[in-house]
């Protein structure tokens, strides 16, 4: 079961997810050490593998740095749920084989610490803590194909 880490914030940007002072490396393990550092310095200490980040609108706005997705993946975050995502970040997620869940009103439906079980195929989130079932629109087929192939480059290779 995955635990929700809720930030009642819009526009959580790539500078908060992975500050540019760490962009002198693309080593995923190293980037992961600083995941979400400028938003929450405690984040890396308190989360467990598979946990979920929940935010408001425009998550991942700002830079095109894919390092933001790598830091989140490297920190073993299972999924990010947001009301909406910034365009480049969203595309980078798919290209890295990381599933972004777009869910309007997520901040009203999920509280910090809630235990969630996610069915990606069905497009449902079972909020075990609140005893509620939340529906989301699954990724469109072409994006899902890329995610299931493990990212864009493997997808291109598989197609050949």
């Amino acid at each position, binding site marked *: 079961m995955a635990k929700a880490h809720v930030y009642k914030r819009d526009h959580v940007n790539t500078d908060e997810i992975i500050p540019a*002072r760490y962009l002198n490396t693309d080593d995923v393990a190293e980037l992961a050490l600083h995941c979400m550092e400028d938003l929450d310095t405690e984040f890396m200490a308190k989360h467990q593998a598979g946990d979920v980040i929940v935010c408001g609108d425009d998550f991942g706005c700002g830079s095109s*740095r894919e390092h933001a997705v790598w830091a989140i993946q490297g920190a073993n975050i299972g999924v990010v749920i947001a009301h909406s995502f910034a365009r480049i970040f969203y595309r980078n997620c798919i290209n890295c084989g990381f599933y972004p869940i777009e869910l309007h009103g997520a901040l009203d439906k999920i509280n910090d610490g809630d235990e969630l079980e996610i069915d990606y195929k069905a497009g449902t989130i079972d909020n075990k803590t609140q005893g509620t079932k939340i529906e989301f629109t699954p990724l469109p087929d072409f994006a899902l194909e890329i995610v299931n192939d493990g990212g864009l*480059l493997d997808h291109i290779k598989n197609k050949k």
Partner: protein
Amino acid sequence: MSMTITEKILARAAGKERVAAGELINAQVDMIMCHDVTTPPAISMLKEKGIDKVFDPEKIVVTPDHFQPAKDIKSAELHKRLDTWAKEKKLPYYYKIGRAGVCHALLPEQGHIRPGEVIVGGDSHTCTYGAFGAFSTGIGSTDLAAAIATGILWFKVPESMKFVLTGSLSKGVYSKDVVLEVIRRIGTDGALYKAMEFVGPALKEMSMAARMTITNMAIEAGGKNGIIGFDETTKRYLDGRLKGKTDYTVFESDVDAVYSHEDTIDCSSLEPMVAFPNLPSNGKPISECAGEAMDQCYIGSCTNGRIEDFRIAAGIIKGKEVAIRTIIVPTTPRIWKQAIDEGLAEIFYDAGCVVSAPTCGACLGGFMGILAEGEKCVSTTNRNFVGRMGSPKSGVYLASPATAAASAVEGQLTDPRKYL
């Protein structure tokens, strides 16, 4: 059916008669911009997947800029990877340190940006090139790797928003103030996934540098691309400058093209704007915020680090002593030399400013002007997110070069019009 300029360019790149907003297309990429932060990972990915091919060396421009000259061992390693790859692939447009500059200033200056083309770059401010009537957008490292290898990327054709710039800018008000006003109105996600098309008589009076300041910040409203149609000013800039292919196709929006949003900005009524921390949409007119104390002034970046910007700043700073530390960063070697040849560097030296070599550096909190806790910086850059230029407890105030220069002189946010 009618189409916007963005739709026409994407239709051409997809080999289609027409495309409509929302349609998924595979587009042929005409130009790829590569820099030192996002390209080395793309190179590694390609190597790891056993993909050795570069689709067309003529269509790739490489310049280290974010951390150049290398700020530490790790960034030196990034530069080394970029350098090795560019040499191995014999890329003809590799700008080595000494010729390298801030990418979005360098590529247009060196004649790599053509109207009507599809341009991508591993940097969110790649939208800058839309000032030339091109479709240009920022991508991440994986897309960059795919583009380098195949020359093809998928796109969802964006809906277009139209911003009509009427009137004309009054003295002391610049294109930076216009774009800060646009972002103030629609918010940092007001143009999410969309094309921002700028039209209107006020644009006619703007130089290519001024136009690039506007399209540069399309991403700060969440836009996929910013775009301005071709005219005489564009032509004058391009004539004799283009490298390689010198012909290009000019597209323009049909008069009955469909827009999801239309807004008019009366440029005559604008005053200098300052965007307060921590969002570019926190714009305030200078009359409401003058007097706020600053610790640093930064004039540079892909938004406002071109020669015109330094002329404006020097005009205000000339003969005065700056009250706060003031960092001047010409964005390309040519601009750096121009600043010296035109006597601007001397003006800055006399006033107590520091003039650095071209780099993105402090704009993104890299180096060469990092802020300490509690410090405030008036900056001609494009982002003022938490920790953008240093400590998460510092603040960035976005403004035009004129406002930044006047604020440097007084050590507080200052209306530049009193110095003009």
